[in-house]
């Protein structure tokens, strides 16, 4: 039974929460606004908020000067590619651990998780040298391999927790009614598993898109995704705030939108089921 909350109390909560929310979000809003200013307006003192001549010039400049969309495309290929390969490897594994558990299942899951605890810098040197010798440095393919491997434990875990929730009895019932293995998988399991697979995919694209250790260390100009491309603004020439903002806005917008849809999965995926 919910208590009646006074309107005054409600208004107070709302005011405090909106103020704090706006403060936390402000840097993102400011980046968005600055991306439509001229470089002079971007550093104006006092700062201009909405009343400036909105221009999309920065977006075209960023594209013309540095072939922005190549890096954007690298990000897409690397994050989606590594997620899809990861799913292809992880779905059978998570599937069999959830439906045909053995006494080793828990140990295997825990061991997989432990690989995620390995600090990347601990294996930086050998990976770098292996990549150099195999000519994988600065290639999309090389990064896809690394990102697939670092996110594989999370993918297996997330899928496992989702598959675990599918009741096994329903399969037995279908089998009793004479369903073949094919129709069992196709008409019963798949429809129940798809939402879990979709959330896993979403979260892992986000993680891979924002990954900034391996992408910075293993790429140069050619295969650099947006994380590495944006890093080139750390040693800029001349005025660059508006251009930095335009490049940043395009880099974070798609992921921000995907992220808002995956709030719930985020908790499950990043705490390995420890908080639900």
């Amino acid at each position, binding site marked *: 039974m919910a208590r009646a909350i006074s309107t005054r109390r*409600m208004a107070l909560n709302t005011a405090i929460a909106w103020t704090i*929310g706006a403060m936390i979000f402000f*840097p993102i809003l400011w980046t968005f606004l600055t991306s439509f200013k001229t470089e002079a307006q971007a550093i104006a003192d006092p700062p201009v908020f909405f009343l400036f001549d909105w221009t999309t010039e920065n977006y075209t400049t960023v594209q013309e000067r540095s072939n922005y969309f190549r890096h954007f495309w690298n990000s897409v290929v690397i994050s989606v590619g590594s997620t899809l390969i990861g799913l292809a*490897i992880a779905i059978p594994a998570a599937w069999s651990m959830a439906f045909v558990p053995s006494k080793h299942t828990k140990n295997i899951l825990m061991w997989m998780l432990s690989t995620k605890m390995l600090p990347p810098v601990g294996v930086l040197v050998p990976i770098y040298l292996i990549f150099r010798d195999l000519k994988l440095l600065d290639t999309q393919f090389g990064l896809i391999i690394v990102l697939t491997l670092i996110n*594989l434990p999370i993918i297996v875990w997330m899928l496992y927790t989702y598959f675990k929730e599918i009741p096994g009895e329903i399969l037995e019932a279908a089998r009793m009614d004479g369903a073949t293995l094919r129709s069992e998988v196709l008409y019963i399991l798949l429809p129940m598993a798809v939402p879990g697979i979709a959330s896993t995919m979403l979260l892992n694209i986000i993680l891979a898109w924002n990954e900034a250790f391996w992408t910075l260390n293993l790429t140069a100009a050619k295969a650099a995704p947006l994380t590495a491309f*944006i890093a080139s603004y750390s040693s800029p020439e001349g005025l660059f705030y508006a251009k930095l903002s335009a490049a*940043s806005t395009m880099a974070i917008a798609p992921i921000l939108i995907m992220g808002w849809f995956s709030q719930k999965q985020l908790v499950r995926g990043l705490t390995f089921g420890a908080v*639900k």
Partner: protein
Amino acid sequence: MATKASRSAARVMIAPSVLLLLGWMVIPLALTLYFSVLRYNLLMPGANPFIGVENYTYFLTDPAFTDAIINTLLLVGGVLTITVLGGIGLAILLDQPMWGQGIVRILVIAPFFVMPTVSALVWKNMFMNPVNGLFAHLASALGMQPFDFFAIAPLASIIGIVSWQWLPFATLILLTAMQSLDSEQLEAAEMDGAGPLARFRYIMLPHMARAITVVILIQTIFLLSIFAEILVTTNGGPGTASTNLTFLVYAESLLRFDVGTGSAGGVVAIILANIVAIFLMRMIGKNLDT
């Protein structure tokens, strides 16, 4: 219902994941250990003789190592303090009834989705720059001297930026925990005369305890490996003022090309991370049984 056939099928289905992760873990780890006992510098081609623990003594007695350890602890501790305290506060606030709760939630978690290089560069230039940043404009409007964040307090500035990125994570997880708290319990306590502070201390905090531990452990794992934010803002400097262990190993191996010392540093980083990992794994393992 598992038959012998389905068991062996299960093994085949798990094998690719296990073998790939095993390869990913064992091969580089073995190489790191191997390189760490060699004199191996990419700038000096030729034989790479075995030198025992010399790389370790060099790395561990380097003054930069002490600085890096202190900076790592300050970075992890600082960010944890800010995000956990802030996260508890925000979780309780967002759990209250209000108008537009969903929108506030979206605003609060947004920073988590911003890639590290973007958030670091936006904060460094558009906010903390001593001439053109918003904070400098604000300071001069109030008649104060602008503060040169990265020259005077580089590590604290990085702690600020990283906290902004991780506050949403702590908030989201603690809010999830808060929402599973039975509101009738709170109401009963209130009727029995428990003030807000008592309700927080004896009901909310114990209820969130588990989630708080999870937040601390998971964040620690990620925060030990902070790299991009340092690379694009201070490059570890001035001097070693903002160099953490991860950055120091990167500098040894890929800037000074000293593979041997870098590898020894990598082993040290692994040992440190494992201390935290053991506790985290225990908690997650317990949860798996229930």
